[in-house]
């Protein structure tokens, strides 16, 4: 980073701090009822209190766990199914249109069906999260497989590679930018669905925490939970960008 960039960064942080100060001022002057809007000082105190008593840690761990399991299951299944469909032109003509038809369906609408089948359980949450997160990954994989440079397939044919070898040696690496982009989209979906499932099923996690805090009108705890959820979204998406950068370094070097 050069000097100008650092100065801009600092200025940008100062502006953000200014907004927090305005928030504090509004809270101090009680322009908005403190029942709804705690000052940043109270939200911060609630955050620290939650962490030191261990409550928030366990809630955060619960949410991360739901998110991670659902997302990983969706990633594995999505890439596998996407690879099966994407590597066969017959599957593409028969199956892909049905998937395109299902794509705009708001995935949360599957929640009542999952509740009817599995009850208000951990398994229901995992099913819903995985079901929601699988779409971007699966469709990205199919798209990535379809967009592989045709000459590479010709090479594979002349080398008489098996279908599995074609998938692992040619199609998957060449589709990896699409797949990783899909996995990144799914991360957001997984976080949102984790929160919704925790709210609905009362599972241990930040979603349940913010709802309970709201019910009890403990607005400072509520804001602490929301801030933590924002942080979770931010950290996971930064981590995903770093992983993407790492994993695709070989492609950037090629161009």
């Amino acid at each position, binding site marked *: 980073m050069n000097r100008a960039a650092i100065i801009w960064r600092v*200025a940008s*942080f100062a502006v*953000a701090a200014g907004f927090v100060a305005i928030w504090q001022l509004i809270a101090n002057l009680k322009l908005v009822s403190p029942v709804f809007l705690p000052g940043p000082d109270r939200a911060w105190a609630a955050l620290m209190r939650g962490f030191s008593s261990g409550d928030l840690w366990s809630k955060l761990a619960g949410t991360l766990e739901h998110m991670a399991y659902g997302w990983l299951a969706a990633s594995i299944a999505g890439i596998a199914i996407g690879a099966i469909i994407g590597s066969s032109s017959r599957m593409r003509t028969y199956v892909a249109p*049905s998937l395109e038809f299902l794509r705009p369906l708001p995935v*949360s609408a599957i929640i009542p069906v999952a509740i009817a089948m599995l009850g208000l359980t951990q398994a229901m949450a995992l099913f819903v999260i995985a079901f929601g997160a699988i779409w971007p990954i699966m469709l990205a994989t199919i798209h990535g497989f379809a967009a592989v440079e045709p000459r590479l397939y010709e090479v594979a044919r002349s080398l008489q590679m098996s279908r599995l070898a074609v998938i692992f040696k040619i199609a998957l690496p060449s589709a990896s930018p699409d797949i990783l982009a899909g996995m990144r989209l799914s991360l957001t979906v997984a976080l*949102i669905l984790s929160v*919704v499932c925790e709210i609905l099923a009362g599972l241990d996690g930040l979603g349940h925490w*913010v709802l309970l805090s709201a019910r009890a009108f403990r607005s400072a705890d509520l804001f602490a939970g929301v801030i933590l*959820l*924002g942080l979770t979204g931010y950290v996971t998406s930064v981590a995903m960008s770093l992983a993407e950068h790492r994993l695709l370094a070989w492609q950037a070097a090629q161009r």
Partner: protein
Amino acid sequence: MRANSAKALVLPLAVLVAFEVWARATHLQSDSLAPPSEIVMALFGAFADLSILAATRDTLFSAFAGLAIGTAIGLAFGIAFGISDTLDRLMEVTVEAIRPIPSIALLPIALIALGFGHRMEIVIVAFACVWPVLILSRAAVRSIEPRLMEVARALRLPPAQRVWKIIIPAALPRIFVAFRLSAGIALIVAVTVEIAINPLGLGAGIMLAQQALRPDLMLAYLVWIGVIGYALNILLVVAQNRLFGRAALSGDGQ
């Protein structure tokens, strides 16, 4: 083309027929599944007593009101950030701090501040719709042909006219792409809020059908929500092609 679209129908039809036959043969008794014929009957029933139409109206009202507010806010900030690099850099940390908050996490805040009903749903939908519009319209404004801006300067257009006569028309195709994305998000968020907590619209309808142990009605709602999502998407894609043709494609996929 026609052969391909016929092939596309084979799989869903086969699944439906197989499911119907299986359900009939085993005299299915379930709280979560119903044969397709019963789902269709339930859908007709819900249309006949107008319940599903009222629910659709409530959901679409919240979704579109939130979409309109969110798009307006996102567009205003997106254009401002696109024009002024200084403003964009100064606001960067603030925007990046608020953006990753999952929209649904605002639900409890909206709940205690506004109570149940349309208003809290609209606020959450609007929050979710701001970001795609803000980011894509900012990029669209930045990529406007520099000579157009030079023309505006040479003509000494006042800032308001510069935005209205040069920037918005030039960036409109890509702004519409952002709007299309946001419209899909608006519907998803509206239904999600209704399922999670708000006793209103299609989301509440499907939850109620589940709690009443009416799998046929529940799945009828699911099908109907899918149809609405699909129709909205098609409508916007067609509108985009009609209005902008290939111009919008340059904004897609970025």
